[in-house]
């Protein structure tokens, strides 16, 4: 395991060195990545300054939801990039190369195509979350919920990209776009309170893929609003469990896929 981690760091730093070959372009791209809040959060700011609130959520509260989910998702994109594009590796037969090495396959895949600029996305998510916490004057218990929500989100999104990657063992990669709907689409959906969505969609992201547990329930707990929103007071405590469950499912699915894998041979 420790060897695997060391290999992960080496692969990641090799990726960083490669990207540093275009230093000016890398710095600019990172700055621009940090500015993604202009197009993500800008419209929310426009609408909430015009209408005042969205279903009782002020701009600062909406920014908290956005900051939490975009931190989680960016951390997964930074740390597990290889799983996002896994189907392409599988099709090119590159998985065989990784299988030959006596190190954790999961960690090796995670480090593939490491993109250092994603750190700027993590930073922008965290900056938004911190500013929202300050604006909302959250106490220590609430801050703990925010941190727990971000951590849970990492587990949940990690599980989703792993499930997406595992599906590629069976479908040879035609499903990449659908995985994007769950990850990019999911994090976009979670930038708003789950309560605004129509019934079937709300149920799908609460009981189906438990995305609502990523930031909505922890945020409700942080704002002391769980019961007011019509949920049992203890429900947010299920968040870590639900998110860890998705990751466990992802890891198990990936192991099954690996066991099933037969190289095409070439």
């Amino acid at each position, binding site marked *: 395991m420790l060897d695997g981690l060391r290999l992960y760091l080496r692969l990641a730093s090799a990726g960083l060195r490669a990207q540093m070959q275009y230093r*000016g*372009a890398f710095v600019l791209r990172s700055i621009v990545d940090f500015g993604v809040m202009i197009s993500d959060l800008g419209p929310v700011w426009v609408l909430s300054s015009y*209408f005042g609130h969205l279903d009782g959520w002020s701009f600062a509260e909406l920014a908290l939801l956005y900051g939490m989910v975009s931190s989680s998702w960016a951390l997964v994109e930074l740390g597990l990039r290889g799983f996002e594009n896994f189907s392409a590796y599988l099709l090119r037969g590159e998985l065989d190369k990784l299988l030959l090495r006596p190190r954790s396959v999961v960690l090796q895949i995670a480090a593939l195509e490491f993109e250092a600029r994603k750190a700027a996305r993590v930073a922008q998510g965290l900056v938004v979350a911190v500013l929202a916490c300050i604006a909302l004057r959250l106490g220590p218990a609430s801050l703990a919920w925010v941190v727990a929500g971000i951590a849970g989100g990492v587990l949940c999104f990690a599980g989703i990209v792993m499930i997406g990657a595992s599906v590629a063992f069976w479908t040879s990669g035609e499903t990449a776009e659908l995985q994007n709907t769950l990850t990019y689409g999911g994090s976009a959906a979670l930038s708003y309170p789950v309560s605004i969505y129509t019934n079937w969609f709300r149920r799908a992201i609460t009981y189906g893929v438990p995305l609502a547990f990523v930031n909505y329930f922890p945020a409700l707990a942080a704002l002391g609003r769980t019961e007011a929103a019509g949920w049992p007071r203890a429900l947010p405590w299920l968040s870590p469990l639900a998110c860890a469950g998705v990751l466990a499912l992802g890891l198990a699915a990936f192991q099954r896929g690996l066991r099933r894998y037969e190289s095409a041979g070439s």
Partner: protein
Amino acid sequence: MGAVRPYLQFARLAFQRRAAYRMANATGVVVNAFFLMLHAQVLLGFFRARGIAEGWSAADAVLYFMASESLLLAIGLFPDWNYNLAERVRTGEIIVDLVRPVRLYAREVAERFGTAGYYLVTRAPAVFGIGWAIYGFVPPLRWELLLFPVSLALAIAVMAGLWFAACSAAFWRERANGEILAVVIVNSFFGGAFVPLDFYPEPVRWLANALPFRATLYTPVAIFAGKLSGTPLAFGLLHQVVWVGGMAALASMLEARGLRRIAAVGG
């Protein structure tokens, strides 16, 4: 006529390049429809507090967003990361362009129109149809709707200029990914991709009216949704015409300067 022929070819090839990826186009419809549904619910959620705002009803806002989401690919708000001018410069493929008697910017415009043609007959009606099936909103039939195709063509021309300007950064330092992403982000906000500019706070709206980005989206989409008439409509179209010229001038200047920077690497 002979001078136009190569550009017609470029437009046709761009059309065919898009048509080649059937599966990706089908899943793209699903992704667009997902975001359409998602953001429509956000708009409806905000409007629940107030029936009509700035003369827009919730139905107007959703119709506007349906049109915006349907036309994203046709107008070209998202770049082709793998095949663009910047990548041709980086890989050295640009040398092939240079031996042809073809202007790079004119080629970009031609390719944008070819791409737009493909998405206008496939993606746009499919996504709008899904939105219509869910919400049942259609554009009001008014004479201003006749100006929509004109405005759409102007939008595509401005977008071509923006992409060309962003990609030409590669002439100076081989990569333009940062510039390209900056155009995506700034254009999406100041173009009103999600929220009509009418709702923007005063100083931001002034800024948006001066910048080129509203020409790529807000003007044609608001015309489609029946929310532009009279003086604002005239201003919108004039703004578009001015920026088509402005972007063409900027792009031509960048093309001339950039080409002087090119040094081919043999091999």
